[in-house]
C-alpha cells in the first residue's frame, strides 16, 4: 500500500488554488489513515511545481516531466496515472473537481475498475475508509458515500476545503517516464483561447448576482459595478440568462455553476429552488429585492427590501469609500 495520492494541477509553474485545497484535504486523510501523502506532478518543466507540492505538505512527489504532458490531455495523463496506481496500489486518490480533474478521475476509475465518488464537500476517515459527504439531486439532498474497494478515488468540490499553507518542507521527487509517446496520443490540441480576465465564479470569494429584477441587459450595469468594486465575480439567475441579458457562463444554479463564496449578494433574484441549489452553500447571503415575500429572504442573513437601482449605486459608493478605491 502506498498511502494517499493527490493529483496536482498547475499553471505557469504555480499550484492552482484547487490543488492547494486538495493537498490540505489529502494531509488530513493521510494523517487519519496513518499513511504518507504523495503528490502527483505531471507536466513539462515542473521541477518547481514538485518543490511547491513538498512545501504545501506532501511527503513524497511522484512526477513525470515530458513535452507530451505540456497541456493536460486525459489520454496522456490517464494511462500514466492508472499504470502507476496499478503498480503501487494507493489506498486513496484525491483530485480537484475541475474540468481536468473530473475527466482524469473518471478515466482512472474506468481503467482500474475502481470506485469513484465525485464532488466531495467534506471527508472523514473511518477505519480504512474515507467517508465523503456530497450533494445529490443538484444540492437538494446530501449523502455520505464511501468506496468499498481500493483505491478510493474521490474528487473534491472547489472552495470546500481549506488550502494547505506553504511551509519549509523540501524533498526529492521521484521522476518516471510517460505511459504514452506523442505518437500514441490520438487527441491533438490545435488552439487555446485563454479565459477573459475577470474573476471566475467558482473561485470567487465574493459574487454579486442579478436576476429578473434587473429588467434588461443594461440593468446589469450596477450589479457589475458592485462586483468590480468588491473584486468579485458577476453572477446571474437562469431567468436573466434565458432572457439573453447576460451570457450563460455567468449562470448560477442547477443548470449553471455551483458556487460557495464567502459572500453572495443576490440582486433582483427571487430565489427559485433551482437557483438555491447553486448558491446555498455560500457562507453569507445578502438579498436585495423589491418583493419582501421573495424566497431568497429565507436564505439570507441580511436583506434590503427596495429598488436595486437605488440601493446598488449607494452600496458601490459606500464600499468604494470604505475600501479607499
Amino acid at each position, binding site marked *: 500500500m502506498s498511502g494517499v495520492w493527490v493529483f496536482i494541477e498547475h*499553471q505557469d509553474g504555480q499550484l492552482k488554488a484547487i490543488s492547494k485545497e486538495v493537498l490540505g484535504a489529502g494531509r488530513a486523510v493521510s494523517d487519519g489513515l496513518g499513511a504518507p501523502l504523495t503528490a502527483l506532478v505531471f507536466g513539462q518543466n515542473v521541477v518547481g511545481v514538485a518543490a511547491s507540492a513538498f512545501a504545501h505538505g506532501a511527503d513524497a512527489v511522484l512526477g513525470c516531466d515530458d513535452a507530451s504532458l505540456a*497541456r493536460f490531455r486525459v*489520454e496522456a495523463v490517464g494511462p500514466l496515472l492508472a499504470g502507476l496506481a496499478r503498480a503501487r496500489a494507493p489506498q486513496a486518490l484525491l483530485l480537484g473537481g475541475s474540468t481536468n480533474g*473530473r475527466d482524469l*478521475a*473518471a478515466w482512472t*476509475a*474506468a*481503467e482500474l*475498475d*475502481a*470506485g*469513484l*465518488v*465525485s*464532488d466531495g464537500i467534506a471527508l472523514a476517515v473511518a477505519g480504512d475508509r474515507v467517508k465523503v459527504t456530497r*450533494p*445529490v*439531486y*443538484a*444540492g*437538494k*439532498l446530501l*449523502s*455520505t*458515500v464511501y*468506496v*468499498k474497494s481500493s483505491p478510493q478515488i474521490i474528487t473534491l468540490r472547489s472552495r470546500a476545503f481549506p488550502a494547505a499553507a506553504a511551509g519549509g518542507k523540501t524533498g526529492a521527487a521521484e521522476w518516471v517516464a510517460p505511459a504514452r509517446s506523442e505518437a500514441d496520443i*490520438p*487527441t*491533438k490540441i*490545435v488552439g*487555446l*483561447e*485563454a*479565459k477573459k480576465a475577470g474573476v*471566475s465564479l467558482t473561485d470567487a470569494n*465574493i459574487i454579486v448576482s442579478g436576476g429578473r429584477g434587473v429588467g434588461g441587459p443594461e440593468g446589469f450595469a450596477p450589479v457589475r459595478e458592485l462586483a468590480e468594486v468588491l473584486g468579485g465575480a458577476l453572477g446571474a439567475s437562469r431567468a436573466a440568462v434565458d432572457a439573453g441579458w447576460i451570457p*450563460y*457562463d455567468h449562470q448560477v444554479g*442547477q*443548470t449553471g455553476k455551483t458556487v460557495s463564496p464567502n*459572500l453572495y449578494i443576490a440582486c433582483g433574484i427571487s430565489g427559485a*429552488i433551482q437557483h438555491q441549489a447553486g448558491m*446555498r452553500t455560500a457562507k*453569507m*447571503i*445578502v438579498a436585495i429585492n423589491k418583493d*419582501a415575500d421573495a424566497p431568497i429572504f429565507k*436564505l*439570507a*442573513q*441580511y*436583506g*434590503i*427590501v427596495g429598488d436595486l437601482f437605488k*440601493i446598488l449605486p*449607494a452600496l458601490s*459608493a*459606500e464600499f468604494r469609500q470604505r475600501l479607499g478605491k
Partner: protein
Amino acid sequence: MKAVVCIKQTPSTTAVFAVDNGVARWDDPGGKPVVLNPWDEYAVEEAIRLKENHGAAEAVAISMGDDSSAEQLKTCLAMGCGEAILVADAAFAGSDSLGTARVLAAAIRKIDDAQIAVFGKQAIDGDTGQTPVQVAVKLGWTPLTFVSAIKEVTGSTITVERLIDEGKETVTAPLPVVISVVKEINEPRYPSFMGIRKANRATIPVWAAADLGVNGGVGAAASQADWSHIYPLPERNTVVQLIEADTPEEQARVLVNKLFEEKVI
C-alpha cells in the same frame, strides 16, 4: 457513420425532495415529476445536427432505465432522432457509474457503424459527470468532454471546441469518439407536431443484458460505492435581518458596516 445519443430520465428541476426511511422521494409542484435530463436536451439536438449538417446516417437515442424511460426516448424521436432503444434489465438496477458505463458501451457497440456517442455533461440527479469518459474507456474510444462546438467532422476525424476551466480549447481527434456537451453548444428544438405523432406511434425496442452479452459487473451488487446514507440538507439557520432606513444611502451604510463586522469583505 451513425451518431448515438445517450439520455437519462431525471427528476424535474422544480422537484422538491424529502427523505423517507433513507430513500429519496420527490414531488413536483409543476406536476411533471420526471423529465429528460435537461443537459441531455443539448446532446439530443447535437446528435440530430450531426445527421443534418455533418453527414451522420442516423441519430439513435438510447437510454438505460426502467420501462418509464420510453417516454423520454419518445421525446428524442419527436425532436428528430430516427431510432430509439431502451436498455433495460432488472440486473442493471443499482449500477454505479462504472456499471452503467459497461452497459452503455455494450449497447453502443451493438449499433452498426456508430462513430460518435453524445452525452449531456452530467445528469441532474447524481451530478457525477463520470459516465461519458468511463463509456469511452470501456469502448476504447477517445473522450472529448465539455464540448461547446463541433467545428468539423471529416470521414475519419472530428474537431471540437471544449469549454474547460482554462478557457476554450480546440482539439482534433480521430473517430470514433465519445463527446459530452455543454449548454453553449446549441439551442434545443421543440418537438414538431408531426414528430410527436410519429413518436406516439413508435414501438421502442428493449435490449436486455442477454442481448448485450453483459455478464456481471453491473447492478447493485457490483457497485463499488455505498450510497445507503442519504439525508436532507441542514437548515440554513438564519433569520433575515432586514435593513431599514430612510434613504438608500443610509441602508447602504448600515449594510456595509455589518459586512465588515462579519469579516466577509
